[in-house]
């Protein structure tokens, strides 16, 4: 009896402490998710009651809305080009900084700075202007003989502008890589050096395998966040997703459907498809990771 009372008391205390999360989770995540699931099968414009239309939203998405298919294509391009480039850059800089120099702290700060300010409207405005027809990027391209690029006329170039902005913010992946590199003992490299392994061999045989769990973590987190990118596309295209829908990332199209055209049902259906895509991508990354991620000590994770 006494024992049961303590157990109950423990439960009550525990739930008292986590109650903000429990309430918030129900009110701002779980219940909204159910509402969103329901709305995805309806036609709803916020002003009149939702009208049940079954799978029509989903059917329309994949058969009757070229703009949607285009936004899917643009987003996949953005994710599959941007994320690997960003991670490669992050790893390259992290390796560059992983030595005994006293200036490392300063360099780390400088290379991380873009990531700190990267999500702001100010930086998107800046990006818009350095890529303008008279901007410094075109000046540089002309100087090295590559000629001016019409960043705001060509949809692919415009997407490239978004990708460079995302690569520019490699800082948080870099910090995580740097912390991982510090955990690799120098003796490993010394031993490999004695055995005659060159820098390339050491990179592929020591650095990459030992870093692979961290690469996986970065890959998953960056893929998810890249898939949800909104602010740069919204600001750089002034909310239009142009030119010719070249910067119409998924989140931007969803935003426009929901809040410019009041197609709340359609936007909810889009959100669920996005959730499923992100879920599948994460699952695939985890599944494939068995073949390339190396865990130094089993059960270390």
């Amino acid at each position, binding site marked *: 009896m006494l024992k049961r009372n303590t157990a109950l008391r423990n439960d009550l205390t525990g739930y*008292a402490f986590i109650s903000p999360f429990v309430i*918030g989770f129900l009110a701002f995540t779980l219940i909204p998710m159910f509402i969103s699931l329901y709305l995805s099968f309806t036609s709803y414009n916020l002003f009149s009651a939702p009208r049940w239309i079954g799978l029509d939203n989903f059917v329309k998405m994949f058969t009757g809305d070229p703009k949607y298919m285009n936004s899917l294509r643009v987003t996949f391009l953005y994710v599959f080009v941007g994320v690997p480039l960003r991670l490669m850059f992050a790893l390259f800089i992290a390796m560059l900084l992983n030595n005994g120099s006293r200036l490392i702290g300063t360099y780390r700060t400088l290379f991380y700075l873009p990531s700190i300010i990267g999500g702001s409207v100010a930086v998107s405005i800046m990006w818009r202007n350095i890529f303008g027809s008279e901007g410094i990027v075109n000046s540089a391209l002309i100087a090295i003989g590559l000629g001016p690029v019409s960043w705001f006329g060509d949809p692919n170039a415009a997407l490239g502008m978004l990708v460079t902005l995302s690569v520019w913010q490699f800082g948080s992946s870099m910090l995580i890589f740097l912390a991982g590199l510090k955990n690799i003992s120098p003796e490993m490299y010394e031993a490999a050096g004695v055995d005659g392994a060159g820098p390339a061999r050491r990179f592929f045989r020591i650095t990459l395998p030992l870093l692979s769990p961290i690469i996986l973590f970065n890959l998953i987190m960056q893929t*998810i966040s890249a898939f*949800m990118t909104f602010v740069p596309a919204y600001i750089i295209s002034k909310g239009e997703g142009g030119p010719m829908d070249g910067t119409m990332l998924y989140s931007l199209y969803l935003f426009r459907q929901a809040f410019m055209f009041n197609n*709340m049902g359609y936007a909810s259906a889009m*959100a669920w498809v996005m959730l499923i895509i992100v879920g599948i991508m994460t699952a695939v990354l985890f599944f494939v990771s068995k073949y390339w991620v190396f865990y130094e000590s089993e059960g270390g994770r």
Partner: protein
Amino acid sequence: MAWKTIKWPVYHLFAIALAVLMLYPVLWMLMSSFKESRLIFVTAESLLPDKWVWSNYADGWKGTAGYPFMTYIWNSLVIVVLSTIGAVLSSSLIAFGFARLSFRGRNLWFALMMVTLMLPHDVVLVPQYVIFTKLGWLNSIAPIVVPQFFGIPFFIFLMVQFIRTIPRELDEAATIDGCGKLRLYARIILPLLRSSLATAAIFSFYWRWEDLLGPVLYLNSPDKYTVSMALKMFLDSESTSNWGAMFAMSIVSLVPVIALFFAFQKHIVQGMATSGLKG
């Protein structure tokens, strides 16, 4: 042998060149904000202004849409401060519960929290908007601020990781001295958690200060607009080609972010690195 002596100079030269290349856009915007508006793109190739002018700052400071820029800064600060207090306080309470108390269903709730951490926000965007509309919260800061008082998964995770490194002997000693759980949290754990609280507060500041989607969705009248919204308004009226004022206020909006970064970079770097590694 020659390589040994030039290795470090070459290294530093390369690192500095790369850093300059990366930060050049920011420098360019900073310098452009001191150029006359009409000259910004005419002299885009030269970094330094021929003549330094402050008029862009004076211009921008006058604001847009009939309100001085200070109004937008004030609106942003109100949101940031309330949100940060709410996020940090609630997250630390929740983290204490997860890290130190044992109760039935704890692992389930912790798992749900981790799932929420990865959940694409877009899924709840529309229903949240519908709910907040029905509650009559449109055109107020409530939809932006109130959810912050229910814990932020990233912060909870960060703090749980930190609390787990605090020796449990401290808790036991305090409990023997008759300390209840709430006092244990307030008197023992919270003071030790200072660095995590600071990290969470800084990230919260960044996210709310830079937030655009929240204000775009929920604030409709310019007197309530935040700095991000003010910059967006500058951009929307860009055709008037007053780039100078837009750049100047962009720089102003970045000043608190960069200042905070330099003041607390140790917290930020550690927060990023540990949360990442233990993920």
